[in-house]
């Protein structure tokens, strides 16, 4: 693994727009998921939480580019899973949630591209 030097600082992930969007979507989904069964509700919330936590993990692993990219890709994976589950459960605001998830995906791809350019 390539070690990125000159990074002796604590990186903050809370300023990331993708993270903010993921957290906002999590809180917005709370209301929409009320009508669903417990299993579906828990599954979607867990995956949505994992989107946010994977973005945080990616930002946290600041010394290794590969680790960062891996966690961003994990976040991408969870966005697809959430979208599929929302579609399957026919959630009320599916269209809006889907748009938000696409935006998050675009942002994550931007972060990955940025890391690859800086290599």
């Amino acid at each position: 693994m390539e070690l990125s030097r000159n990074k002796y600082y604590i990186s903050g992930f809370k300023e990331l727009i993708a993270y903010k969007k993921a957290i906002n979507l999590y809180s917005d989904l709370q209301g929409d998921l009320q009508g669903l069964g417990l299993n579906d509700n828990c599954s979607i919330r867990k995956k949505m939480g994992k989107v946010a936590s994977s973005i945080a993990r990616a930002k946290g692993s600041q010394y290794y580019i590969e680790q960062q990219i891996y966690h961003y890709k994990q976040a991408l994976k969870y966005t697809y899973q959430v979208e599929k589950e929302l579609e399957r459960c026919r959630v009320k605001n599916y269209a809006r949630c889907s748009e938000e998830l696409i935006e998050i995906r675009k942002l994550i791809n931007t972060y990955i591209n940025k890391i690859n350019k800086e290599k």
Partner: protein
Amino acid sequence: MIKQINADDKKYLENIKAEDVVIKDFRKLKAYQLSLELIKSIILIANRLPKHETYVLKDQILRASYGVASQISEGNGGLYTKREIQFCSTATASLCEVQAWLDICVLNNYITVEEEMNLERIAVEIKSLLVTYVRELIL
């Protein structure tokens, strides 16, 4: 086959003083002690969570917090610098995950903002210590 120890080897082994052998003790690391403190606080929060959060929030936040302490100890026990840095990096990442799950706890009103701020303070302290360890290892 058992290796025979000759007289020279024996003499050499006898000459090794106890203080020459350095065994790294991760328990003395401030970051490790703080991570245990963080785990204690998170267990208290996790026990307060409702039953339907057992496999959602509780499971994830506990795993992430245990990860911090275990990565620090595993990294410190290794012989290779690069591996140690890698473990420090993973520990920092786990800390970030803990912070993210704490944010979600606040969203769900499971913990107060003051509680979160308190844990955030510990997390930032651990992170800064980890950054210092890495800096010392790289330089």
